[in-house]
Protein backbone atom coordinates (compact mmCIF):
# COMPACT_ATOMS: atom_id res chain seq x y z
CA UNK A 1 0.00 0.00 0.00
CA UNK A 2 1.61 3.15 -1.19
CA UNK A 3 1.37 6.28 0.87
CA UNK A 4 2.56 9.67 -0.27
CA UNK A 5 2.64 13.24 0.94
CA UNK A 6 2.39 16.22 -1.40
CA UNK A 7 3.13 19.86 -0.77
CA UNK A 8 2.25 22.75 -3.11
CA UNK A 9 1.77 26.44 -2.28
CA UNK A 10 -1.82 27.38 -1.40
CA UNK A 11 -1.84 30.31 -3.87
CA UNK A 12 0.17 30.53 -7.10
CA UNK A 13 0.74 33.56 -9.32
CA UNK A 14 0.10 33.03 -13.04
CA UNK A 15 3.35 32.11 -14.78
CA UNK A 16 5.45 32.34 -11.64
CA UNK A 17 7.51 29.24 -10.73
CA UNK A 18 6.33 27.28 -7.69
CA UNK A 19 7.86 24.33 -5.88
CA UNK A 20 6.22 20.93 -5.81
CA UNK A 21 7.30 18.34 -3.22
CA UNK A 22 6.24 14.72 -3.09
CA UNK A 23 7.45 12.03 -0.68
CA UNK A 24 6.49 8.43 -1.41
CA UNK A 25 6.66 5.64 1.14
CA UNK A 26 8.37 2.84 -0.77
CA UNK A 27 11.15 0.42 0.21
CA UNK A 28 12.94 0.88 -3.19
CA UNK A 29 14.48 -2.58 -2.88
CA UNK A 30 17.65 -2.38 -4.96
CA UNK A 31 17.88 -5.99 -6.14
CA UNK A 32 21.48 -6.13 -4.95
CA UNK A 33 20.74 -7.35 -1.45
CA UNK A 34 20.36 -10.88 -0.06
CA UNK A 35 18.15 -12.10 2.77
CA UNK A 36 19.24 -13.86 5.98
CA UNK A 37 19.89 -17.14 4.19
CA UNK A 38 21.69 -15.61 1.21
CA UNK A 39 18.81 -15.67 -1.25
CA UNK A 40 18.77 -12.59 -3.50
CA UNK A 41 15.95 -10.14 -2.77
CA UNK A 42 14.10 -9.27 -5.97
CA UNK A 43 14.42 -5.71 -7.19
CA UNK A 44 11.35 -3.61 -6.50
CA UNK A 45 11.78 0.08 -7.21
CA UNK A 46 9.40 2.70 -8.51
CA UNK A 47 10.54 2.59 -12.14
CA UNK A 48 8.18 5.12 -13.60
CA UNK A 49 6.95 8.37 -12.12
CA UNK A 50 4.80 10.83 -14.05
CA UNK A 51 3.36 14.16 -12.97
CA UNK A 52 0.56 15.53 -15.16
CA UNK A 53 -1.03 18.94 -15.01
CA UNK A 54 -4.53 19.17 -16.41
CA UNK A 55 -3.76 16.04 -18.45
CA UNK A 56 -0.47 17.29 -19.93
CA UNK A 57 2.77 15.65 -18.85
CA UNK A 58 4.78 18.03 -16.67
CA UNK A 59 7.49 15.73 -15.37
CA UNK A 60 8.63 12.18 -15.97
CA UNK A 61 11.26 10.43 -13.87
CA UNK A 62 12.83 7.06 -14.69
CA UNK A 63 13.97 5.77 -11.35
CA UNK A 64 16.31 2.88 -10.66
CA UNK A 65 18.20 1.11 -7.89
CA UNK A 66 20.26 4.20 -7.17
CA UNK A 67 17.38 5.93 -5.42
CA UNK A 68 17.14 5.81 -1.64
CA UNK A 69 14.08 4.32 0.03
CA UNK A 70 11.08 6.62 0.50
CA UNK A 71 12.11 9.01 -2.29
CA UNK A 72 11.46 12.72 -1.90
CA UNK A 73 11.09 14.58 -5.23
CA UNK A 74 11.25 18.37 -5.36
CA UNK A 75 10.79 20.26 -8.60
CA UNK A 76 9.54 23.58 -9.98
CA UNK A 77 6.64 24.20 -12.32
CA UNK A 78 4.76 27.17 -13.73
CA UNK A 79 1.02 27.24 -14.32
CA UNK A 80 -1.19 29.40 -16.53
CA UNK A 81 -4.55 28.27 -15.17
CA UNK A 82 -5.91 26.63 -12.05
CA UNK A 83 -6.18 22.88 -12.21
CA UNK A 84 -5.08 19.61 -10.76
CA UNK A 85 -1.67 17.99 -10.50
CA UNK A 86 -1.86 14.22 -10.77
CA UNK A 87 1.09 12.09 -9.72
CA UNK A 88 1.22 8.49 -10.89
CA UNK A 89 3.84 5.86 -10.34
CA UNK A 90 4.46 2.18 -11.07
CA UNK A 91 6.89 -0.18 -9.34
CA UNK A 92 8.53 -3.43 -10.44
CA UNK A 93 5.91 -5.51 -8.63
CA UNK A 94 3.23 -3.86 -10.78
CA UNK A 95 1.79 -1.83 -7.91
CA UNK A 96 0.54 1.61 -8.90
CA UNK A 97 0.14 4.70 -6.80
CA UNK A 98 -1.72 7.95 -7.37
CA UNK A 99 -1.78 11.23 -5.56
CA UNK A 100 -3.45 14.56 -6.42
CA UNK A 101 -2.99 18.20 -5.54
CA UNK A 102 -5.16 21.17 -6.43
CA UNK A 103 -3.44 24.19 -7.95
CA UNK A 104 -5.03 27.53 -7.31
CA UNK A 105 -3.81 30.23 -9.73
CA UNK A 106 -4.49 33.86 -8.91
CA UNK A 107 -3.86 36.67 -11.37
Amino acid at each position, binding site marked *: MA*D*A*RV*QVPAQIKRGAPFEV*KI*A*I*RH*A*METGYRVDDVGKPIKRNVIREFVCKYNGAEALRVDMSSGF*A*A*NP*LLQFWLTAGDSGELVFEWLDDSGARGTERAAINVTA
Partner: protein
Amino acid sequence: MKPARSASRLCQRLPALLLAALAGTAPAQQRVIPLTELKSGLAYTGEDVRALQGDDFANPGMLWVERGEKLWSTPAGAGGGQSCASCHQDAKASMKGVSTRYPAFDTAAGRLFNIEARINACRTDRQKAEALKPESEDLLALTAYINHQSQGLPIKVAIDGPARPYFERGRDFYYTKRGQMNMSCATCHEANFGKRLFAETISQGHPNAYPIYRLEWQTMGSLHRRMRSCLFGVRAELLPVGSPPLLDLELFLAWRAEGLKVETPGVRR
Protein backbone atom coordinates in the same frame (compact mmCIF):
# COMPACT_ATOMS: atom_id res chain seq x y z
CA MET B 1 38.60 3.53 21.33
CA LYS B 2 41.32 3.45 23.97
CA PRO B 3 40.44 0.52 26.24
CA ALA B 4 42.65 1.59 29.16
CA ARG B 5 41.12 5.02 29.32
CA SER B 6 37.54 3.88 28.98
CA ALA B 7 38.15 1.28 31.67
CA SER B 8 39.37 3.95 34.05
CA ARG B 9 36.30 6.08 33.24
CA LEU B 10 34.14 3.13 34.14
CA CYS B 11 36.05 2.65 37.40
CA GLN B 12 35.38 6.24 38.33
CA ARG B 13 31.70 5.57 37.87
CA LEU B 14 31.69 2.24 39.67
CA PRO B 15 30.92 3.66 43.14
CA ALA B 16 27.84 5.29 41.70
CA LEU B 17 26.84 2.06 39.98
CA LEU B 18 27.32 0.07 43.17
CA LEU B 19 25.31 2.60 45.09
CA ALA B 20 22.57 2.30 42.48
CA ALA B 21 22.64 -1.47 42.82
CA LEU B 22 22.62 -1.35 46.62
CA ALA B 23 19.90 1.28 46.76
CA GLY B 24 17.50 -1.48 45.65
CA THR B 25 14.25 -0.66 47.37
CA ALA B 26 15.11 2.96 48.22
CA PRO B 27 12.61 5.37 46.61
CA ALA B 28 15.26 7.71 45.18
CA GLN B 29 17.45 6.28 42.45
CA GLN B 30 21.02 7.27 41.87
CA ARG B 31 21.40 8.94 38.48
CA VAL B 32 24.72 8.40 36.74
CA ILE B 33 23.99 11.21 34.25
CA PRO B 34 22.42 14.14 36.14
CA LEU B 35 19.09 15.33 34.75
CA THR B 36 20.63 18.66 33.75
CA GLU B 37 23.22 16.93 31.55
CA LEU B 38 20.85 14.71 29.58
CA LYS B 39 21.16 15.11 25.83
CA SER B 40 18.90 13.67 23.17
CA GLY B 41 20.55 11.46 20.58
CA LEU B 42 19.89 14.26 18.12
CA ALA B 43 22.76 16.21 19.71
CA TYR B 44 25.19 13.47 18.65
CA THR B 45 24.12 13.26 15.00
CA GLY B 46 25.26 15.58 12.25
CA GLU B 47 23.86 18.88 11.03
CA ASP B 48 22.29 17.12 8.02
CA VAL B 49 20.37 14.64 10.18
CA ARG B 50 19.17 17.45 12.47
CA ALA B 51 17.93 19.37 9.43
CA LEU B 52 16.14 16.29 8.08
CA GLN B 53 14.36 15.67 11.38
CA GLY B 54 13.49 19.33 11.80
CA ASP B 55 11.82 19.69 8.40
CA ASP B 56 8.27 18.40 8.77
CA PHE B 57 7.99 17.61 5.08
CA ALA B 58 11.44 16.12 4.42
CA ASN B 59 11.39 14.02 7.61
CA PRO B 60 10.62 10.56 6.18
CA GLY B 61 9.14 9.46 9.52
CA MET B 62 6.18 11.74 8.80
CA LEU B 63 5.07 9.26 6.11
CA TRP B 64 4.42 6.76 8.93
CA VAL B 65 2.81 9.41 11.12
CA GLU B 66 0.36 10.22 8.31
CA ARG B 67 -0.34 6.56 7.71
CA GLY B 68 -1.00 6.21 11.44
CA GLU B 69 -3.46 9.09 11.24
CA LYS B 70 -5.40 7.22 8.55
CA LEU B 71 -5.33 3.96 10.53
CA TRP B 72 -6.55 5.80 13.65
CA SER B 73 -9.98 6.24 12.09
CA THR B 74 -10.04 3.00 10.08
CA PRO B 75 -12.42 0.40 11.60
CA ALA B 76 -10.92 -3.00 12.36
CA GLY B 77 -11.99 -6.34 13.78
CA ALA B 78 -15.25 -8.02 14.70
CA GLY B 79 -16.05 -5.77 17.64
CA GLY B 80 -18.69 -3.82 15.74
CA GLY B 81 -16.27 -2.19 13.32
CA GLN B 82 -14.68 0.13 15.82
CA SER B 83 -11.68 2.27 15.05
CA CYS B 84 -9.28 3.84 17.55
CA ALA B 85 -11.23 7.08 17.07
CA SER B 86 -14.53 5.41 18.09
CA CYS B 87 -13.36 5.42 21.71
CA HIS B 88 -10.48 7.90 21.82
CA GLN B 89 -11.91 10.49 19.40
CA ASP B 90 -9.37 13.04 18.22
CA ALA B 91 -5.87 11.78 18.95
CA LYS B 92 -4.52 15.32 18.93
CA ALA B 93 -6.36 15.87 22.23
CA SER B 94 -6.76 12.38 23.69
CA MET B 95 -3.23 11.11 22.98
CA LYS B 96 -1.40 14.28 23.93
CA GLY B 97 1.19 13.43 26.58
CA VAL B 98 0.23 9.75 26.71
CA SER B 99 3.54 8.36 25.48
CA THR B 100 5.46 10.44 28.04
CA ARG B 101 3.97 8.13 30.71
CA TYR B 102 4.84 4.85 28.95
CA PRO B 103 5.90 2.11 29.59
CA ALA B 104 3.29 1.86 32.32
CA PHE B 105 1.85 -0.94 34.44
CA ASP B 106 -1.63 -1.95 33.31
CA THR B 107 -3.74 -3.07 36.26
CA ALA B 108 -6.28 -4.95 34.17
CA ALA B 109 -3.69 -6.97 32.27
CA GLY B 110 -1.38 -7.21 35.30
CA ARG B 111 1.74 -6.47 33.31
CA LEU B 112 3.88 -3.69 31.90
CA PHE B 113 2.68 -2.13 28.64
CA ASN B 114 4.60 -0.04 26.16
CA ILE B 115 2.67 1.85 23.49
CA GLU B 116 2.90 -1.08 21.06
CA ALA B 117 1.53 -3.52 23.67
CA ARG B 118 -1.19 -1.00 24.56
CA ILE B 119 -2.27 -0.72 20.91
CA ASN B 120 -2.40 -4.50 20.54
CA ALA B 121 -4.34 -4.91 23.81
CA CYS B 122 -6.90 -2.42 22.46
CA ARG B 123 -7.07 -4.34 19.20
CA THR B 124 -7.56 -7.80 20.71
CA ASP B 125 -9.74 -6.86 23.72
CA ARG B 126 -11.87 -3.99 22.37
CA GLN B 127 -11.86 -4.19 18.58
CA LYS B 128 -11.73 -8.00 18.53
CA ALA B 129 -9.13 -7.68 15.81
CA GLU B 130 -5.86 -9.51 15.31
CA ALA B 131 -2.84 -8.11 17.10
CA LEU B 132 -0.49 -6.24 14.79
CA LYS B 133 2.82 -8.00 14.21
CA PRO B 134 5.91 -6.53 15.87
CA GLU B 135 7.74 -4.15 13.49
CA SER B 136 4.89 -4.31 10.97
CA GLU B 137 4.27 -1.12 9.00
CA ASP B 138 0.87 -0.63 10.62
CA LEU B 139 2.11 -1.02 14.19
CA LEU B 140 5.01 1.35 13.53
CA ALA B 141 2.65 3.84 11.91
CA LEU B 142 0.15 3.82 14.79
CA THR B 143 2.93 4.03 17.39
CA ALA B 144 4.56 6.91 15.50
CA TYR B 145 1.21 8.73 15.22
CA ILE B 146 0.43 8.32 18.94
CA ASN B 147 3.95 9.27 20.11
CA HIS B 148 3.95 12.24 17.72
CA GLN B 149 1.05 13.73 19.71
CA SER B 150 3.47 14.12 22.66
CA GLN B 151 6.14 15.87 20.60
CA GLY B 152 7.84 18.52 22.74
CA LEU B 153 6.51 17.17 26.06
CA PRO B 154 8.90 15.84 28.73
CA ILE B 155 9.12 12.14 29.58
CA LYS B 156 8.00 11.17 33.09
CA VAL B 157 7.27 7.55 33.92
CA ALA B 158 6.15 5.95 37.19
CA ILE B 159 8.64 3.46 38.61
CA ASP B 160 7.04 2.82 41.99
CA GLY B 161 4.28 0.49 43.06
CA PRO B 162 3.60 -2.39 40.67
CA ALA B 163 6.12 -1.01 38.12
CA ARG B 164 8.98 -1.34 40.63
CA PRO B 165 10.06 -4.94 39.89
CA TYR B 166 10.06 -4.20 36.13
CA PHE B 167 12.18 -1.13 36.72
CA GLU B 168 14.68 -3.04 38.85
CA ARG B 169 15.00 -5.81 36.31
CA GLY B 170 15.50 -3.19 33.59
CA ARG B 171 18.20 -1.48 35.61
CA ASP B 172 19.96 -4.80 36.24
CA PHE B 173 19.81 -5.58 32.52
CA TYR B 174 21.32 -2.18 31.74
CA TYR B 175 24.34 -2.69 34.01
CA THR B 176 24.92 -6.38 33.23
CA LYS B 177 27.81 -7.16 30.92
CA ARG B 178 26.78 -9.48 28.13
CA GLY B 179 27.81 -10.97 24.83
CA GLN B 180 31.19 -11.95 23.41
CA MET B 181 32.32 -8.34 23.80
CA ASN B 182 31.44 -8.49 27.51
CA MET B 183 29.90 -5.03 27.51
CA SER B 184 26.92 -3.56 29.32
CA CYS B 185 24.73 -0.76 28.00
CA ALA B 186 26.53 1.53 30.47
CA THR B 187 29.95 0.75 28.99
CA CYS B 188 29.07 2.85 25.95
CA HIS B 189 26.13 5.03 26.91
CA GLU B 190 27.22 6.15 30.39
CA ALA B 191 31.02 5.78 30.49
CA ASN B 192 31.83 6.75 26.90
CA PHE B 193 29.08 8.90 25.37
CA GLY B 194 30.34 11.73 23.20
CA LYS B 195 33.35 9.66 22.09
CA ARG B 196 33.80 8.03 18.72
CA LEU B 197 32.96 4.44 17.87
CA PHE B 198 34.34 4.11 14.33
CA ALA B 199 32.56 6.81 12.32
CA GLU B 200 29.77 7.39 14.85
CA THR B 201 29.56 9.44 18.01
CA ILE B 202 28.23 7.43 20.93
CA SER B 203 25.02 8.90 22.32
CA GLN B 204 23.61 8.70 25.83
CA GLY B 205 21.09 6.19 24.49
CA HIS B 206 17.76 7.83 25.21
CA PRO B 207 14.36 6.54 24.02
CA ASN B 208 12.72 9.93 23.37
CA ALA B 209 12.42 9.91 19.55
CA TYR B 210 11.02 6.44 18.82
CA PRO B 211 9.90 5.02 16.50
CA ILE B 212 12.80 6.47 14.52
CA TYR B 213 13.62 6.65 10.84
CA ARG B 214 17.14 5.27 10.78
CA LEU B 215 19.12 6.03 7.64
CA GLU B 216 21.00 2.74 8.03
CA TRP B 217 17.70 0.85 8.00
CA GLN B 218 16.19 3.03 5.28
CA THR B 219 12.93 2.64 7.15
CA MET B 220 11.14 3.16 10.44
CA GLY B 221 11.99 1.01 13.45
CA SER B 222 10.99 0.63 17.07
CA LEU B 223 13.07 1.13 20.20
CA HIS B 224 13.28 -2.64 20.57
CA ARG B 225 14.72 -2.99 17.08
CA ARG B 226 17.36 -0.43 18.05
CA MET B 227 18.10 -2.35 21.26
CA ARG B 228 18.58 -5.47 19.17
CA SER B 229 21.11 -3.57 17.04
CA CYS B 230 23.07 -2.86 20.23
CA LEU B 231 22.77 -6.51 21.34
CA PHE B 232 24.04 -7.55 17.91
CA GLY B 233 26.90 -5.06 18.24
CA VAL B 234 28.12 -6.58 21.50
CA ARG B 235 27.44 -10.08 20.09
CA ALA B 236 24.88 -10.94 22.75
CA GLU B 237 21.74 -13.03 22.47
CA LEU B 238 19.22 -11.26 20.23
CA LEU B 239 16.07 -11.01 22.32
CA PRO B 240 12.76 -10.81 20.43
CA VAL B 241 11.01 -7.47 19.92
CA GLY B 242 8.43 -7.03 22.68
CA SER B 243 10.04 -9.62 24.98
CA PRO B 244 9.92 -8.97 28.76
CA PRO B 245 13.63 -8.12 29.20
CA LEU B 246 13.45 -5.44 26.49
CA LEU B 247 10.24 -4.05 28.00
CA ASP B 248 11.92 -3.84 31.42
CA LEU B 249 14.87 -2.08 29.82
CA GLU B 250 12.49 0.32 28.04
CA LEU B 251 11.07 1.35 31.43
CA PHE B 252 14.54 1.91 32.87
CA LEU B 253 15.56 3.96 29.81
CA ALA B 254 12.41 6.10 30.09
CA TRP B 255 13.17 6.80 33.76
CA ARG B 256 16.78 7.55 32.87
CA ALA B 257 15.62 10.07 30.22
CA GLU B 258 13.21 11.87 32.56
CA GLY B 259 12.54 15.41 31.38
CA LEU B 260 13.84 14.88 27.84
CA LYS B 261 11.32 16.00 25.25
CA VAL B 262 9.59 13.56 22.93
CA GLU B 263 10.79 14.04 19.32
CA THR B 264 8.84 11.38 17.43
CA PRO B 265 9.39 10.84 14.54
CA GLY B 266 13.14 11.05 15.10
CA VAL B 267 15.75 10.66 12.38
CA ARG B 268 19.05 9.00 13.19
CA ARG B 269 22.01 7.66 11.26
